[in-house]
C-alpha cells in the first residue's frame, strides 16, 4: 500500500516536472494544456487497445498480432451498422462485442489452442497469419475504400483553453469503464482467479477440475471482445479501412509491456504514459517523431523496472 502511494507520488512529481518543462519549451500555456489533454485522451484509447491484449498476452502468454485486425473487425461492424442501419455508433457495441467474443472463441478453440504452451514464435506466426487473413478478407469484401462514421452530436468541449471532441471523451470514458470491468473480472471473481490459475499452471488447473481448454478459449474470447469494444469506440475518431487496426497493434504491445504483462492497472497507466509522452515529447523535440521519445521512455522504464510498471518480479 505504502509503496503504491509513494510510487503514485513519484509519478505525480515526474509528470509535473515534464509538463512544466513542456510549457517552458513551447512557450504557450494553451498548447501545453492541449498537449496534456490530448495526451490523456489518446492514452485512454491506447489503454483501451491494450486491455484485451494484456488479458491475452499476460494471462495466456500469447503474442497476439491479430489484435489490431480484430479491432478492425469491430470497426467495420460499427461502420456498417451505423451507415446501413443508421444506428448510433455507440449502440453497435451490442453487436461488436458479442461478435468479436464469438470470433475469439472460435479462433482460440480451433487455431490458437493448438499452439498453446508452444513457442512464442509459433504463436506470433499464427496470429500474424490470422491478421493477414482478416485484413485481406475485409479488403476483398469491402474494397480498400475508407469509411468514416461521424457522430452527429459530436461537439468540441473546452477545458482551460484546450479542446476535446466529445467522441474522444467518450472513448476515454469507455476505456476506463472497460478497464474497471476487466480488473474486477480478474481480481474479484472466481472466474478471474481461475483464469490466472490456468495461466500459471495448466496441469495444476486441470488437477483441481478446471476445464483448461474452455478457460483458455473464454479468456481469448474476452480479450477479443475487448478489441471489439475498442474498435467501436475509436470508429468515430478514425477512418475505417482494412488496415486501420494495424496502427494500434504495436502501440498496444508497448503499453502492455510497459505496464506489466497481465496487469490491468498497468495497461491504463502505460496507456496514459505513452499518450502523454507522445504529445509532450512532440513539444520537446519538434520535428522528430513522437515515437522516438515514446520508445526512449519505454526502454528507460524497462531498464528501471524490467517487469513493467505493475508487473510482478519474475
Amino acid at each position, binding site marked *: 500500500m505504502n509503496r503504491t502511494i509513494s510510487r503514485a507520488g513519484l509519478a505525480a512529481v515526474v509528470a509535473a516536472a515534464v509538463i512544466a518543462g513542456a510549457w517552458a519549451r513551447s512557450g504557450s500555456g494553451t498548447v501545453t494544456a492541449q498537449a496534456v489533454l490530448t495526451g490523456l485522451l489518446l492514452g485512454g484509447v491506447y489503454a483501451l487497445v491494450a486491455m484485451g491484449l494484456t488479458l491475452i498476452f499476460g494471462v495466456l502468454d500469447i503474442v497476439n498480432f491479430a489484435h489490431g485486425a480484430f479491432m478492425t473487425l469491430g470497426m467495420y461492424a460499427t461502420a456498417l451498422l451505423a451507415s446501413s442501419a443508421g444506428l448510433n455508433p455507440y449502440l453497435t457495441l451490442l453487436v461488436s462485442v458479442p461478435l468479436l467474443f464469438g470470433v475469439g472463441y472460435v479462433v482460440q478453440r480451433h487455431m490458437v489452442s493448438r499452439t498453446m504452451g508452444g513457442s512464442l514464435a509459433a504463436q506470433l506466426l499464427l496470429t500474424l497469419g490470422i491478421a493477414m487473413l482478416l485484413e485481406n478478407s475485409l479488403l476483398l469484401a469491402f474494397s480498400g475504400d475508407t469509411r468514416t462514421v461521424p457522430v452527429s452530436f459530436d461537439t468540441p468541449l473546452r477545458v482551460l483553453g484546450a479542446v476535446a471532441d466529445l467522441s474522444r471523451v467518450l472513448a476515454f470514458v469507455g476505456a476506463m469503464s472497460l478497464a474497471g470491468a476487466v480488473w474486477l473480472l480478474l481480481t474479484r471473481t472466481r472466474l478471474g*482467479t481461475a483464469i490466472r490459475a490456468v495461466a*500459471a499452471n495448466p496441469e495444476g488447473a486441470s488437477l483441481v*477440475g478446471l476445464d*483448461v481448454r474452455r478457460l483458455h478459449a473464454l479468456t481469448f474470447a474476452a480479450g477479443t471482445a475487448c478489441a471489439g469494444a475498442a474498435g467501436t469506440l475509436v470508429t468515430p475518431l478514425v477512418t475505417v479501412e482494412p488496415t486501420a487496426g494495424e496502427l494500434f497493434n504495436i502501440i498496444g504491445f508497448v503499453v502492455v509491456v510497459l505496464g506489466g504483462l497481465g496487469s490491468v492497472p498497468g495497461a491504463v497507466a502505460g496507456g496514459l504514459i505513452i499518450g502523454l509522452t507522445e504529445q509532450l515529447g512532440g513539444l520537446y523535440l519538434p520535428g522528430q517523431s513522437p515515437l522516438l521519445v515514446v520508445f526512449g521512455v519505454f526502454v528507460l522504464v524497462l531498464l528501471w523496472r524490467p517487469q513493467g510498471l505493475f508487473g510482478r518480479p519474475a
Partner: protein
Amino acid sequence: MMLSLDGIEAGYGGLRVLHGLSLEVAAGELVALVGANGAGKSTTLRVASGLLRPSAGRVVFDGEELTGLPGHAVVRRGLVQVPEGRALFGPLTVAENLAMGAFHTGEPADRVLELFPRLAERLDQRADTMSGGEQQMLAIGRALMTRPRLLMLDEPSVGLAPLMVRAVFDALGRIRESGVAILLVEQNAAQALALADRAYVLENGVITLSGTDLAGDERVRRAYLGL
C-alpha cells in the same frame, strides 16, 4: 472396486513405460504403490488422472469408464491427484491456490489450515516463494479442497521434515478415516507399507507383487526397505 486400472499400456512418444498394468483400489482403502526410480509410478497416476491417454487398457472409477476423459472431468468425479511436481499456481497466493481447489466444491479451507498451520500463517504469500516443504503442504491442501473420494498422492513426503512427514502420514490416516480412499505412491516405503491396507510393487511398468503384508516379503524388505 472403486478404481480399477486394467491392462494399461502407456508411454511418452516412442517410449513405452507401462506394459499392461492392472491395479485396484476399493472404497475406503489406503493402497500403497511402491517401486524403483523410473518404474512408472508417476505415469500410472497420470493415466488414472486423465493427464496421459493410455494406448491400451481401461480406467474405471465407480463403475464408470473414464479412459480418455480429460483431467478436469476426472477430478470432478472425485478422483484427484497430488502430482509429483506439485503443479502449484506459482504467481497466485496460498489463499488463491486453495480457493482454486474449491472451485467446484466451495469447500471451506478450515480443515486444511488446521492440518497445515504453516499455510494459515502464509495465506498471502506467493506460492512459488514458499519453501520446498511448504509447497508440498500446499499441494496436498489444494487437492483436499476438491473434496476427493479417492486421493492419489505422488510421493507426498518428499522434502518434508520428519515431524512433518509424521503429520502428513497422520493426516492421510485421518483422511482415510473420513471415508476417502487413497492411492499412495511413496519412496518412504516403510511408513507407507505400515499405514497401507494393501500394497503393489511396480517394476518396469508391470505389477510384480501385491498383497496386504508386503513389509514381510523378503524381496520387498531388501529392495525397498533397505533391510
